[in-house]
């Protein structure tokens, strides 16, 4: 069991989300940086379905009520166990009674904590993920919460440390054309992939709002709502694109100009408000 002493700005339980329920309006949700979440699970020998804790801007403090094997991945943070520095991207033993502290990330936004066995909260529609849009799943962590540890562990981990590149300070996300590129003015795509964009303050697990040049539409009629994917770059009437992340709505009513490739979604999930970002065409 892990007792939460401090949660930081936002800490949630996340796993691979709840695919398969979109037709009844249930978003997929799940870890925003799936690569970091998956790596954390692998480092402690968890099954891929195990849940981790996703922290936002660090600040998580826990006490292990029993000895636990943990791993910290994603946005790099200083880690201490019982006051002593501990490595990231590596399995770390937290002795019973010891405190585990995650500081603030030097770069990136979301840091993942896996515990061998997985964080065990009651699954909702097959997933332990907190969905900030629909409200499904457990509430965000608060000081005083006690997290049970599950039994979703496989073989003992054999990896000592995983070589991981930290998030880039000059991120470039690859994009493919979206289904409604023709609803935007001809130069919208060119501007998306050639101009500099900034992540605005009202960004969250649902999506990143981007500021930059205004993207104009080619047609003004109303697009009937249609399905969305993580990475969809939607252009609302104000011309400022939204890049959707894990807790995106199931459908949206504005044209999707572009879609970030799946391999670059982890980098998108590590962008903080104020960060610059560029896009590059991945059109084959």
């Amino acid at each position, binding site marked *: 069991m892990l007792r939460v002493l401090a949660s930081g700005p936002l800490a949630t339980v996340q796993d691979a989300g709840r*695919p398969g329920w979109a*037709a*009844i309006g249930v978003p*997929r949700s799940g870890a925003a940086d799936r690569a970091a979440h998956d790596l954390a699970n692998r480092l402690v020998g968890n099954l891929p379905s195990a849940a981790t804790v996703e922290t936002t801007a660090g600040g998580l403090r826990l006490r292990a009520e029993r000895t636990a094997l943990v791993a910290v991945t994603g946005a790099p943070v200083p880690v201490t166990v019982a006051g002593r520095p501990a490595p990231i991207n590596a399995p770390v033993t937290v002795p019973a009674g010891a405190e585990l502290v995650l500081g603030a990330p030097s770069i990136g936004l979301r840091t993942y904590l896996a515990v061998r066995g997985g964080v065990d909260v009651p699954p909702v529609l097959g997933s332990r993920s907190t969905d900030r849009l629909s409200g499904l799943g457990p509430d965000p962590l608060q000081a005083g919460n006690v997290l049970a540890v599950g039994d979703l562990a496989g073989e003992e981990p054999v990896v000592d440390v995983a070589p991981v590149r930290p998030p880039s300070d000059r991120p470039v996300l690859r994009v493919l054309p*979206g*289904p*409604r590129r023709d609803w935007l003015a001809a130069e919208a795509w060119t501007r998306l992939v050639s101009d500099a964009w900034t992540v605005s303050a009202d960004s969250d697990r649902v999506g990143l709002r981007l500021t930059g040049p205004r993207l104009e539409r080619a047609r003004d009629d109303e697009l009937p*709502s*249609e399905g969305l994917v993580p990475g969809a770059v939607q252009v609302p009437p104000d011309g400022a694109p939204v890049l959707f992340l894990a807790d995106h709505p*199931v459908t949206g009513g504005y044209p999707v100009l572009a879609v970030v490739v799946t391999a670059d979604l982890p980098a998108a999930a590590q962008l903080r408000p104020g960060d610059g970002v560029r896009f590059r065409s991945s059109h084959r």
Partner: protein
Amino acid sequence: MSGRDDGLAVLPYGDRALLVEVAGLDAVAAVRAALEHDPLPGQVDLVPAARTVLVLLDRPPADTDAARLRRLSLTPPPDDDAVRAVDLPVVFDGPDLDDVASLTGLAVPQLVAELTAAELTVAFGGFAPGFGYLTGLPEHLHVPRRSTPRTRVPPGSVGLAGPFAGAYPRASPGGWQLVGRTDAVLFDVDRDPPALLRPGTPVRLREVR
């Protein structure tokens, strides 16, 4: 990408999805039913909407996927006996009932009679877990959204907007014209299936007092 005489087109949607665009709700239902019955390899989810069905995959789409989607039959799905019709009990005392009556030019009792006579079907969801867009309203009952949306629509509210009727599974902001309320449990994560109103479900509104 490529069109067909009946308007079916397959649009690119990144490296894990394809968007099937069709002419309207009947064709959406046909595409959804066909892909539920016979999914693409690696199909993880389907998102039916007003004129599209989004097909989500666990792998990059291939040319063969688009080709197969382009060949889909748009024959309406046969009535599925396994899909039970839902009888939705509604108290018609909504705050916009009088406005809807005057918009449609009907007296309230006549409006209620026509709403309860309509053979509705869940066309698609997407707004919130358990919310279903119900089609099948006669055209003279199509009313615009409220000019000012409400910041909070109480759970169970039954409303109209454009060609659709719907019931709010839980409190949310909303601009629909509220004609009544239901105490039916529209969404329950511990129930199988969790949503009462799933795409393809026939629905009748039944007046209760």
